């Protein structure tokens, strides 16, 4: 099938000559996992192509083969109509293909200009003036500004992203691949990025953005390719697409995207945080004078750019991060008790049922190499007396969770590392909820999960809320935060920049608070 179409296209393309890249029947597998299977995609000059798919659908793997990080098991890649072999990122650059990764690859102590020429052949001495003017020329051309002499560590995330983009353009790339470029940006910064991308498109560049955010696809791209389980399942013009059709393409069936939220008055105060201040390992303030109240039966959302103090706040409350000043008061039946300075074990001994689903599931919340039973007893193995471990109770917990949460696993004795992301999260969240908490702290609980699993998680959180649990929810998708939470607290650079009522707040409002600097 693919072959026939391909040759037709090739002949027609060589005439029109605007086909920049053509992937033909690309397959790649890792062990038994088929990451891509017979994918055929073509990219034209002067267009923005959105590569859409759920996590694990093979988007990044596919693009990594185009940028020389992986090598395909089979299939061919054509650039400008000629078959090419791409063995390394350098090969890709030679062909004018540049990828901007989700995690920036920059040297912190160097300037933007130094990072941009890093690894390039050239004369021994750097002509800084010429370099700076070349960089300015590129950034002016696409309507943004970048200070070539600013050091990376002084930059914001969006500035770093600009450096990455200029780095790729400076090397003469005219095919740009951006892997989830807006994941770390505020809505306003994302808009700026989109403007840049549009002007590059108008300049004749071919651009692919990898994303799972439907709104971005609809507002930015010209065409969409949808991947599901490694295969190309749909290719359509963006003007013919809708949120519903894209979702169905991604998931493979129709899904309801609604979160039930019952409005109600706030319950009793559960935790009062006042003037909480924490220092990071460099002695700088990771949290600066944070004060808020968390109520029973409430989901309090935390929004903010990544690294604004979310992690530290969650860990300080759960006794895992040293507190420099302020207090965290837990209130049970009007009886306050101070949690500051206590270890997790001491907190538990006080009879405070804190449950915590950390951001790093396999590196902190679970033990990747151990099976479900052994992960169930992580926090409770010491509750029983004796020298030896009792596996009966955790085993029955594990079996119960597999049933109630529909966890897909070969069995209770399979290492959790082997489970898929959604199932790993169900194991972790299931264990924490099963401990019967009065306070539940969850950090990025749906990161990397497919749409279906995400909604399972939202429903679980909602259920906890109904049961009177005080839920602290750190999220990144502002739409979800607005839909799910009762109130949203916004952090910016370790400071609390505002608390808004979720039902009445807007995304723009949150965006402003996220970048708000109270000078």
């Amino acid at each position, binding site marked *: 099938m693919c072959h026939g179409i391909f040759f037709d296209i090739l002949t027609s393309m060589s005439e029109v000559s605007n086909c920049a890249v053509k992937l033909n029947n690309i397959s790649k597998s*890792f*062990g*038994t*996992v088929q990451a891509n299977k017979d994918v055929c995609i073509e990219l034209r*000059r002067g267009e923005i192509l959105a590569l859409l798919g759920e996590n694990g659908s093979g988007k990044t793997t596919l693009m990594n083969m185009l940028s020389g990080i992986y*090598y395909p*098991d089979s299939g061919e890649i054509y*650039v*400008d109509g*000629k078959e*090419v*072999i*791409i*063995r390394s990122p350098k*090969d890709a650059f*030679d*062909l*004018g293909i540049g990828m901007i990764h989700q995690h920036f690859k920059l040297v912190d102590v160097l300037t933007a200009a130094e990072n941009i020429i890093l690894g390039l052949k050239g004369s021994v001495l750097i002509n800084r003036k010429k370099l700076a003017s070349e960089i300015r020329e590129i950034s002016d051309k696409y309507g943004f500004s970048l200070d070539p002499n600013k050091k990376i560590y002084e930059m914001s995330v969006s500035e770093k992203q600009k450096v990455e983009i200029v780095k790729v353009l400076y090397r*003469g790339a*005219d095919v740009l691949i951006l892997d989830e470029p807006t994941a770390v940006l505020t809505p306003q910064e994302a808009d700026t990025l989109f403007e840049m991308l549009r002007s590059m498109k108008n300049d*004749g560049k071919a651009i692919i953005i990898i994303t799972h955010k439907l709104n971005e696809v609809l507002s930015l791209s010209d065409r969409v390719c949808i991947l599901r389980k490694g295969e190309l399942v749909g290719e359509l013009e963006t003007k013919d697409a809708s949120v519903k059709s894209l979702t169905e393409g991604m998931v493979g069936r129709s899904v309801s995207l609604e979160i039930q939220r019952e409005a109600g008055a706030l319950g009793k105060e559960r935790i009062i945080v006042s003037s909480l201040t924490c220092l990071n390992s460099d002695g700088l303030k990771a949290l600066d004078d944070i004060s808020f109240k968390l109520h029973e039966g409430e989901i309090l959302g935390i929004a903010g750019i990544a690294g604004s103090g979310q992690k530290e706040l969650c860990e300080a409350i759960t006794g*895992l991060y040293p507190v420099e000043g302020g207090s965290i008061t837990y209130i049970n039946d009007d009886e306050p008790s101070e949690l500051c300075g206590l*270890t*997790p*074990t001491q907190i*538990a001994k006080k009879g405070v049922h804190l449950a*915590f689903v*950390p951001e*790093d599931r396999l*590196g*902190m*919340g*679970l*033990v*990747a*190499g*151990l099976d479900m039973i*052994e992960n169930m*007893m*992580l*926090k409770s*193995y*010491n509750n029983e007396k*004796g*020298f*030896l*471990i009792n596996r009966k109770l955790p085993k029955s917990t594990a079996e119960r969770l597999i049933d109630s949460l529909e966890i897909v696993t070969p069995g209770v004795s399979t290492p959790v590392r082997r489970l898929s992301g959604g199932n790993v999260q169900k194991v972790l969240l299931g264990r924490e909820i099963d401990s019967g908490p009065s306070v539940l702290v969850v950090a990025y609980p749906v990161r990397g999960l497919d749409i279906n699993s995400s909604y399972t998680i939202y429903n679980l959180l909602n259920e906890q809320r109904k049961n009177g649990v005080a839920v602290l929810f750190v999220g990144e998708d502002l739409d979800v935060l607005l839909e799910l939470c009762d109130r949203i607290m916004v952090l910016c650079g370790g400071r609390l920049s505002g608390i808004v009522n979720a039902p009445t707040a807007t995304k723009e409002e949150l965006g402003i608070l996220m970048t708000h600097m109270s000078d």
Partner: protein
Amino acid sequence: MNENKQITQHPDYKEHHEPWVRMVKRDNVSTQRAVAVRAIAILAALLVGGILILLMEHNPILVYKDMIIGSLGSPLVLRETARMAIPLLITGMGIALAFKMRFWNIGAEGQIIAGATAASYFALFHYQNMPSPVLLMVMFAAAVVAGGVWGMIPAVFKAKWNTNETLFTLMLNYVALEGLRYLQYGPWRDPSKMGFPVIAMFDTSARLPRVFGVHIGWIIALVLVVLVYIYMKKSKQGYEITVVGESIQTAKYAGINTSLVFLRTMFISGAIAGITGFVTVAGANFTVSEEVTGGVGFTAITVAWLAKLNPAAMIAISVFLAILQKGSGTIQTIYKIPSSAASMLIGLILFAMLGCEFFLNYKLIFKKK
């Protein structure tokens, strides 16, 4: 569209060839395949070793046969092989406990010396004061405490200042060794040996009894296998070791006192190595000298690693290594093969066994056409 033309004319453009060989990670390996790969690896090592032997103008098959006969062929050599396996087995278990915690204890040598020296102190200077069983128990306890404390020192520094345990444990080997040399050349030197720097032989009351012709160190070793197995797999403390080894973050999250686990586990690890010191001086050498370890502290790392830290598997591995060592000793005397060449043979086989793990985890894809 200027850049576009540049690219098509780029000089490197046509020179990109498919790579000659690529590595791809395997997902799961069947037991059959694993056994086959390992068997092929050992065969390959024997083959290369055979060429080596041929180059020395001997018949490889006869040499290999004599290695087996020399290590397993008679009750006498069998007992000798067992004697060599005992310290490897015991030390391997001590190392496995530390390795399970991802604490790279390469200081077993020093811990063995510490245990041997402490046991020898009672054997040399207090044998008159107590009956043999009591003396042996005191020696055992002294070895456990000394080895344990020696093992715990790097853990204290790791817990307090996050020092690198690999360097720390390695350096402590030399500290222990030089300490023992000082005793051997100084205060503990046997005056009746006419100026030879050796320490006196133990009194018979300080020597371990024998069962089936081998000192009871083998019983101690097998009891330890059971105890260590239960400790690692069934106990709460063993569970804590696993969690700390997998992720310190998770351990802290679970409320585990990681410093305590470091200290406790390294005490036990060192103590077990100390027991090796005890059985070596009281069971085999009946004295202590700077050669007391015979490199066991390092070889046992291979034992622990090849056995994948499983105490039961360590029995087989330590016996296998003892066979190699004993056998290589035999062929040195029969064929006058230099000891360096015999060590090369052992090295080849171990290299193949460790190296074949790569082929269990990865497969290579060669260029088509």
